[in-house]
């Protein structure tokens, strides 16, 4: 507690928690987001996040903690939508459609609950300044779980990203690897809902890897840069929010976007690689 007390002298306690929670979330969302980018699953991530809002509503309605509802709904949505068969309607359109229906339903559900109505914006754009110490611990545990699994499954996941056909034909990746990936995307989305909200969490999954891409020549390098950029976005965004009195969640996303611009220009100026 000594450390946090010292920090509290320098700045407000809630800012300290917000910065730590946001940075931990970013450190995990960045590398995981690389795989979302490589496997072209941005649509899936977005729909899972939108369904998360429905999960929060269902959780409150049935008397669970909203986080439990969000995690469960996001997980089911990820597992079901990843298996959506391609038909006359493209999979991406179908997945996007389901996600938005979930978002609409969730919004209607939350708005019908008088006690929650005031918090609606928090569900959509996050409420990072209201993170409790427990929230930070939950975010941290999710981040550790994500990064550990990522390290363990790195080769299989990367093989799937490079060529799913090769990975499956040669039995280098199985159902376990696929399910673990989707489960972690759902988990990051669920804890990220508190930080940047259902509408913006996917930005934190996609922008840092996109910013990292021109800086890297290897997948490992790209994951490392994505972790650093996403983690740095949280304190940077909070600083901007504190200074200019703007909403914190969107400010974190804008900080990530700013780092994307800096990385793109920087890579070009210093003889951009690849």
């Amino acid at each position, binding site marked *: 507690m000594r450390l946090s007390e010292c920090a509290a002298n320098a700045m407000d306690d809630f800012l300290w928690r917000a910065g730590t929670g946001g940075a931990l979330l970013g450190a995990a969302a960045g590398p995981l987001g690389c795989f979302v980018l490589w496997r072209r699953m941005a649509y899936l991530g977005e729909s899972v996040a939108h369904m998360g809002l429905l999960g929060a509503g269902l959780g409150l309605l049935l008397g669970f903690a909203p986080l439990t509802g969000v995690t469960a709904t996001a997980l089911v949505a990820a597992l079901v939508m990843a298996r959506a068969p391609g038909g006359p309607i493209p999979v991406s359109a179908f997945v996007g459609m389901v996600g938005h229906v979930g978002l609409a339903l969730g919004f209607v559900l939350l708005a019908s609950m008088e006690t929650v109505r005031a918090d609606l914006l928090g569900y959509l754009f996050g409420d990072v300044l209201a993170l409790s110490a427990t929230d930070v611990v939950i975010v941290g545990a999710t981040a550790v779980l994500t990064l550990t699994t990522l390290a363990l499954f790195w080769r299989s996941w990367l093989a799937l990203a490079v060529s799913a056909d090769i990975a499956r034909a*040669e039995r280098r990746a199985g159902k376990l690897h696929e399910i673990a990936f989707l489960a972690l995307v759902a988990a990051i989305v669920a804890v990220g809902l508190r930080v940047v909200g259902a509408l913006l969490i996917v930005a934190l999954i996609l922008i840092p890897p996109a910013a990292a891409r021109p800086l890297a020549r290897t997948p490992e390098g790209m994951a490392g840069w994505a972790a650093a950029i996403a983690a740095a976005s949280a304190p940077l965004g909070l600083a901007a929010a504190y200074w200019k009195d703007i909403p914190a969640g969107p400010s974190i996303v804008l900080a990530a976007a700013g780092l994307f611009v800096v990385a793109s220009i920087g890579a070009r100026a210093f003889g951009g690689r690849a």
Partner: protein
Amino acid sequence: MDWIAPLISATDLSLTAGGTAILSSVSLSVRAGEIVTVIGPNGSGKTSLLRALMGLVPVDAGEIARKPGLKIGYVPQHFARDRSIPMTVGGFVQLFATAGAARAALDRVGASGLERRQISSLSGGELARALLARAIAGQPELLVLDEPLAGVDIAGEAALYRLIAEIRDEIGCGVLLVSHDLHVVMAQADRVVCLNGHVCCEGKADKVVSDPAFAALFGSRIAGELALYVHRHDHSHPHAASRETLEMKGSAPG
């Protein structure tokens, strides 16, 4: 060689897609050390057969048996050179094998100069070599190649097919190959399977080209040309011919 259990075998495979029969009652097996080539016109189900064998598409009927723990090296028909993944050719091959094996494999296919290049920057022919190197780097027991030489020029194509046969000799793997280049295929295959939704004919190259079913499928002009070609080839490569007769028992025309 009938007494050796096949590395992989399919029995009476049937596959439909969107109400259309793609494969009906197709049986096929590959043993260690033999090169089996599947040929057939466009839409004959060659790629579907390979994908079904690899477990990439579910089949409607039939059985697929793999030798337990079979090590496969697969070169798919399509490989997206994805620019979003920063990856060198060396890193790509090392993802599936040790650094030493990766370097040796790249060397073997004449692609050691590509090691530090980004995958996304490769030409079609360079990519074909990188994919072949990746497939052999793990010392597979079975090499499965689906039109592996798209983008390779004609001279390079003949050389690469010779290389595949040499690799077979070196590591003793079975090879299952889909191709539409009949000339090169005929020169290297131990056994040719002629597919058109079902197995039309099957056997040694010279037998298959003189089969009426082959002429019906590809036209008698091509069949006649190839019969001449195979004949000439047999005479200019007695070693290859004797290997064919040794390993071709038990694969009577279907």
